[in-house]
């Protein structure tokens, strides 16, 4: 396979790798305990965690997937990034204060404290299988991306990225993950900004771009219940409601980030800024190339037969120059690494807190557990790597992994959600809703028909029909790429005019070279910024759900253009004799049966052409791919809603007949005050106060308190015994040099904070530097 990009591009990539490795490994010095290794010592500023979440949220395939969706469905590709706010109150005032104040270290640990040990065991098994499988899957997808996009052999790319990620995660832990994510997040945003600016400039500016995309591409949401692969109602319920709850309540990597902030209030800032500001930006970053491509199609700048899956590399290579392209590729790699490092750290946390400590070595020194955490990180990476061949060799293993995720997510979510929201939810209800819910959901993977009652509530097709949409722009033709269009957004069936086109289709497994079924195609003429766009749509019926079909488009207009003998005679054009028609070639219909992959063009870009079957030579047939589509009926988005309903019913029903657990104070939303008392070790002080600056005065010893001036204490509204956060005053350190400590008895030297050498060392403070002091609780 040919390598894409120039030596300069690869030089940038190598410098990036070395830089990230050195940067991550540097933070090993800040990791002295398992709290540092997994939670960064709970000391970081809100903005640092927010930027880290950017890099984690943009995963291995985001650029490719959302560029494709942006190209086919338009700006509605942002929908999955922009519909989290509705469920945020429950995280902000429910789950976040519970995990933070109750010092929950892992999701399974909550299961034991809120329910019992057997429920924790089920949650631990579910989580480990899910996370380790996810590491392997991410390695595999990353390798696929680098191989298909850059031509780099995946069996070289995967180990290289795995080793680099494992080195900085193992040495620097969560602190390294957070700081490398900061750099990777900046890379991602810079790359996105570059792509957006050069892409728009290439089109001719924002106005020109807007005029060259149609209404269906401009809207913030896709069609209500069509097309099946990207429809509004499924995304709203599956991603916006269930997905957001799942991501915020049971994603161990996400939770660990929020446990790394200096306070719950800082966590709320992170959450708000991330959801309202950063996620929309991320949606633009990953989707913008697809939006640019959609306008380029209208302007005739992209090959009409382009494969939507290749749109990211195709267009970014066209609109960028050597060097910048390397930067974009480095950003793509950053997206991959920043997801994997979080997963490795999360698996290690579960491994230590839910397996090693409770089952293997209950009592050991902090030093021992830190060492064990590093060993588990390496093991998690190795197991993830070992799964790559399995994922690459068997599609059924890949599908099994997705089925497993679908199976465990709703049960775990319901158990945590009801556990958090109601004291009445019982341990037996949690256990049985997980077991029965999991079994029912697994059954729905095998028999998706049982989801139909839920999916039908929103008018989803059962897979017995499908819309095929294509366009002819200024005489050129497009198929496939725009299949994600909701054709009712373009025009309703009653608005279109019947054409001479028909779509002939057949079940792929039954196809023996002839098509049994056909459907008339309807059309409507439109103009887009002066460009004539002929839109064609057809609804194919009588299909088998969840099946693959092959189809072709037949243009019968040539048959009409040459008048038939009786017609010609009628209008007096020719003398209708048999001899004339014997000499004139009989007009033939034009059959469009697929695309031709013609390799790579002069600039290294893939050339794909729409081909009429009539034009394809014998030699070219090897590069010929038939049109195909898959029918709906899997209800991927609604499966999670279905699972949630089943688990809720089981959970509530079992709760009615069983006894709730006593003493769950601090673990439910209606006992947050108890959690605060537990966190502080005393009555919380919630009075708002100022943040003050002070000079450090050291004294010998290891007293775990700091002493402030009495006037400063008053300004902070702090009392002796309150929990205080002391941080180096240089904001850009993001809390790297900081600590939580209790306030001791005040003194009377304004602007001075007295602390023991131990506290000074714990906070990694620097002699002579001013600190900021803030009362936490």
């Amino acid at each position: 396979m040919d390598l894409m990009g120039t030596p300069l591009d690869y030089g940038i990539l190598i410098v990036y790798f070395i830089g990230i490795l050195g940067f991550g490994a540097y933070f090993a010095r800040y990791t002295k305990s398992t709290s540092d290794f997994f939670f960064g010592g709970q000391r970081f500023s809100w903005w640092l965690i927010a930027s880290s979440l950017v890099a984690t949220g943009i995963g291995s395939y985001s650029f490719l997937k959302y560029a494709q969706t942006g190209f086919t469905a338009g700006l509605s590709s942002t929908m999955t990034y922009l519909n989290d706010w509705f469920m945020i109150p429950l995280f902000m005032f429910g789950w976040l204060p519970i995990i933070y104040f109750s010092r929950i270290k892992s999701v399974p640990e909550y299961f034991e404290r809120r329910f019992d040990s057997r429920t924790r065991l089920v949650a631990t098994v579910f989580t480990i299988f899910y996370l380790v499988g996810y590491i392997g899957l991410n390695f595999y997808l990353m390798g696929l991306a680098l191989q298909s996009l850059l031509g780099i052999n995946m069996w070289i790319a995967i180990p290289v990225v795995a080793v680099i990620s494992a080195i900085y995660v193992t040495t620097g832990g969560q602190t390294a993950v957070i700081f490398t994510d900061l750099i990777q997040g900046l890379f991602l945003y810079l790359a996105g900004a570059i792509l957006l600016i050069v892409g728009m400039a290439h089109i001719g500016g924002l106005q020109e771009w807007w005029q060259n995309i149609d209404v269906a591409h401009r809207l913030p949401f896709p069609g209500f219940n069509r097309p099946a692969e990207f429809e509004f109602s499924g995304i709203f319920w599956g991603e916006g409601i269930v997905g957001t709850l799942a991501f915020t309540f049971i994603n161990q990597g996400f939770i660990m980030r929020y446990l790394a902030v200096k306070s719950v209030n800082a966590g709320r800032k992170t959450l708000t800024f991330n959801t309202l500001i950063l996620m929309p930006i991320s949606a633009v970053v990953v989707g913008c190339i697809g939006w640019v491509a959609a306008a380029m199609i209208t302007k005739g700048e992209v090959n009409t037969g382009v494969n939507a899956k290749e749109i990211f590399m195709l267009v970014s290579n066209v609109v960028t120059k050597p060097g910048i392209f390397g930067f974009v590729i480095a950003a793509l790699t950053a997206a991959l690494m920043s997801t994997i490092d979080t997963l490795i750290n999360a698996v290690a946390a579960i491994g230590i807190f839910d397996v090693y400590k409770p089952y293997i070595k209950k009592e050991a020194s902090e030093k021992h557990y830190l060492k064990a955490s590093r060993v588990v990180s390496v093991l998690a990476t190795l197991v993830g790597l070992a799964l790559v061949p399995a994922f690459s060799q068997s599609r059924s293993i890949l599908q099994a992994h997705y089925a497993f995720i679908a199976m465990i997510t709703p049960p775990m979510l319901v158990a945590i959600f009801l556990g958090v929201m109601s004291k009445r939810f019982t341990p037996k209800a949690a256990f049985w809703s997980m077991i029965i819910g999991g079994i029912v959901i697994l059954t729905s993977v095998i028999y998706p028909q049982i989801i139909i009652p839920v999916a039908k509530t929103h008018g989803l097709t059962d897979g017995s029909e499908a819309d095929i949409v294509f366009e002819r722009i200024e005489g050129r033709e497009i198929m496939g790429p725009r299949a994600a269009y909701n054709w009712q957004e373009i025009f309703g069936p009653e608005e279109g005019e019947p054409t001479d086109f028909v779509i002939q289709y057949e079940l792929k497994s039954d196809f023996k070279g002839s098509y049994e079924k056909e459907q008339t195609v309807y059309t409507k003429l439109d103009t887009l910024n002066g460009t004539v766009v002929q839109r064609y749509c057809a609804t194919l019926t009588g299909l088998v759900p969840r099946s693959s079909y092959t189809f072709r488009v037949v243009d019968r207009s040539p048959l009409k253009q040459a008048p038939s003998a009786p017609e010609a005679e009628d209008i007096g054009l020719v003398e209708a004799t048999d001899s004339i028609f014997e000499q004139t070639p009989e007009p033939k219909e034009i059959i469009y049966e697929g695309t031709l992959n013609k390799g790579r063009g002069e600039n290294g870009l893939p050339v794909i052409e729409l081909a009429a079957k009539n034009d394809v030579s014998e030699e070219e047939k090897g590069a010929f791919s038939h049109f195909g589509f898959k029918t709906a009926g899997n209800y991927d988005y609604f499966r999670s809603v279905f699972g949630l309903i089943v688990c809720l019913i089981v959970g509530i029903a079992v709760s009615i007949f069983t006894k709730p657990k006593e003493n769950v104070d601090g673990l439910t939303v209606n006992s947050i005050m108890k959690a605060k008392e537990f966190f502080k070790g005393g009555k919380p002080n919630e009075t708002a106060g100022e943040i003050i600056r002070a000079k450090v005065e050291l004294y010998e010893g290891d007293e775990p308190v700091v002493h402030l001036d009495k006037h400063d204490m008053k300004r902070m509204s702090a009392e002796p015994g309150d929990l205080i956060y002391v941080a180096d005053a240089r904001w850009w350190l993001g809390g790297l040099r900081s600590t939580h400590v209790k306030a001791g008895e005040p003194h009377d030297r304004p602007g001075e904070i007295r602390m023991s050498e131990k506290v000074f060392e714990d906070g990694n403070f620097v002699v002579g530097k001013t600190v900021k002091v803030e009362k936490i609780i």
Partner: protein
Amino acid sequence: MHNGWLTYLYQILVGGLFFAAGTIYVIKVKSADLTIKADKTWVIALIIGYLGLALFFGVWTWLAINT
């Protein structure tokens, strides 16, 4: 009415129901204690966020359909 407004209204109204239910519940059980200044500020921020998003999507939908 254009289909774009249907999806907009669904998102804002049905999503709004979840948002309102969650917000009211955390206030009712005093997890969001409105007597605490920080909590009150965050509840106001949540509501402003919701209204801001509703406005943002509304303007976006209008621009998509009418420009």
